[in-house]
């Protein structure tokens, strides 16, 4: 065991994956220099030409990944901030996601796009977003968002092994946090949520940075409000481990879904709809969602805090769910007519 930050853990993952398979290559801007979180540090020294510094040309970075993947390599691209993937959204959606399906299953596209998302230190509108819902909306893409250094390593190795395009999101705010990370080569399956804390009163569903906020909220709920919350960390958004959510909600009968991305059309909206469709009779309260308000991420710290949710909002949402009491049934139209 080692005590590592996310950057160190994913650096480990890159090293393990590249040692295990010489078809794994890395490309992106400034990666020979090491990357913003040290996530690529030293890779050039060990792997040489398999580490490629690219021009600031997002479209060709992604399209080249697709072309290289379809012809036998396993490319990993560093897209830097997640907003920069939008310059290559055509290539992500129209090529990477569609290649296998559109061509009748004759080809696989094993590639990983690493991108940093979430708010950090007033980076403002074009460097703070969480747009995982855009990727999750498109069939054919997998979406990974770890919340611990240990998961970050195991999920990254598995993402590189995966024979499909994987969007690997790295929340900027939590990157310096450290945690226990096993040494050597290990994988964590995509599509398997983790129950971070067991509880009986309310299910909190979160991922990425909001799983950290969720853990803080669980503690506050227990110590200050006597509420026993269960925390589900999705770890991957696609594939979605809905069974884990359903198992938990069937037990607690209340759900709060949290993410840093916008509420409108967000991942929480999808999960909420599925809970309502499949577990309606179990619910004691409406499903709550905690997410960014429907505005771009503003610069001034007070404004940023007004848009992006903190742990207190998860606490408030969980309390609303637990304290909710169903209003008395309204009279039906028929009885009114009589």
């Amino acid at each position, binding site marked *: 065991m080692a005590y590592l930050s996310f950057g160190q853990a994913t650096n480990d993952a890159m090293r393990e994956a590249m040692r295990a398979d010489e078809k794994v290559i890395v490309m992106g801007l400034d990666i020979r220099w090491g990357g913003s979180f040290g996530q690529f540090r030293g890779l050039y020294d060990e792997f040489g030409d398999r580490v490629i510094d*690219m021009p600031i040309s997002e479209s*060709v970075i992604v*399209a080249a990944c697709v072309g290289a993947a379809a*012809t036998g390599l396993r490319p990993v691209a560093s897209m830097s901030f997640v907003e920069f993937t939008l310059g290559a959204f055509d*290539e992500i959606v129209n090529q990477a996601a569609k290649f296998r399906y*559109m*061509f009748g299953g*004759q080809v696989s596209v094993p590639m990983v796009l690493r991108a940093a998302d979430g708010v950090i230190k007033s980076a403002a509108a074009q460097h703070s977003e969480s747009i995982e819902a855009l990727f999750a909306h498109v069939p054919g893409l997998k979406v990974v968002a770890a919340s611990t250094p240990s998961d970050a390593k195991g999920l990254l190795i598995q993402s590189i092994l995966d024979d499909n395009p994987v969007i690997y999101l790295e929340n900027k705010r939590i990157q310096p946090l450290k945690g226990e990370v096993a040494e050597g080569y290990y994988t964590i399956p995509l599509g398997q949520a983790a129950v971070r804390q067991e509880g009986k009163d309310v299910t909190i569903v979160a991922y990425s940075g909001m799983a950290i906020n969720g853990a803080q909220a669980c503690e506050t709920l227990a110590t200050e409000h006597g509420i026993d919350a269960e925390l589900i960390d999705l770890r991957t958004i696609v594939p979605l481990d809905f069974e884990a959510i359903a198992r938990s909600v069937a037990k607690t009968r209340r759900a709060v879904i949290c993410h840093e991305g916008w509420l409108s059309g967000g991942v929480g909206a999808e999960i909420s709809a599925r809970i309502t469709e499949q577990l309606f009779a179990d619910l004691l309260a409406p499903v709550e969602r905690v997410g960014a308000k429907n505005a771009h991420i503003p610069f001034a710290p007070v404004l940023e805090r007004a848009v992006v949710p903190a742990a207190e909002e998860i606490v408030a949402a969980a309390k609303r769910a637990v304290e909710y009491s169903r209003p008395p049934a309204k009279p039906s139209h028929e009885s009114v007519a009589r």
Partner: protein
Amino acid sequence: MNLPPAETMRHMLLTMLRIRLFEERVLADYMARKIPGFTHSYVGEEAAATGMCAPLRKDDYITSTHRGHGHAIAKGVGLNPLMAELYGKTTGVCHGRGGSMHVADFSLGMLGANGIVGGGFGLAAGAGISIQFRKSGQVAVCFFGDGGINKGTFHEAMNLAAVMKLPVVFACENNQFAQYTAMSRTTSIKDLSTRAVAYGIPGTTVDGNDVLAVYGAAREAVDRARSGGGPSLVVMETYRFYGHSVGDAEAYRTKDEVAERRGFDPIPRFEKVLLEQKVMSDSERQQMWEDVKKEVEDSVAFALASPDPDPASALDDLFTPTPVGGGR
């Protein structure tokens, strides 16, 4: 004239006839509403795909465009699975998932027709990167048009290919129109190959209706790429005989212009050379037409006799199944 071997030239004519007769039949079947969707006819541009693919190996790659049937045929894709794909049948190259704009055969290095204009630039660069890593001596040819050359992806991929010295040939078919708009209205230069200067790579423009001229330029660019000399831009000046897609009223060009340009039909021009050079006799030439007509008829019969896909398979192949811990 430094001619390619006779066998190569006979095969080039065969390829051109296959493309011509296949495309004429496809057009007729679309007009008769026997084939769903829509199609972009390659008729008139046969020399470009044929000449460019003639120097390629089976394991070389090509990326293609929305007007991609000709590229597929020139890379060796059979008429049966190609026609069956247009008919949406399970026996099609993409089992009926792709249709006209997405025909692909990865076993022949045909990395797909592409409905996104300019979509192939980066894909070809990526194939070039994978060739470079394998040191396999393969080449990737990227087909695109005078419309595609104005996409930003052209610049990104040309620059990357040049800086990495990737084994890619950028093959521009200038058929004079981006959809319905003439090149002079969208592009500030006349000779598109001068754009190569901006990337420090060789660029050349040839008569794209002269299959031997295309072959000569292709041979040089392909050899350069294969021997580590990096990418080239080859522009082939050609003209599409039909509109942008089926149902195009062609109000943007006159009938006289089309008639004049049809006078430069690449097939009779090449046939004349083959007869003059005694590569084949006129009866052999006529027999080749008859054989290809039958091949095309057979491909339609094959498509019609093939089963439709099972609706239950509509959700298949979104992902490649990957075991935990990988497929190793």
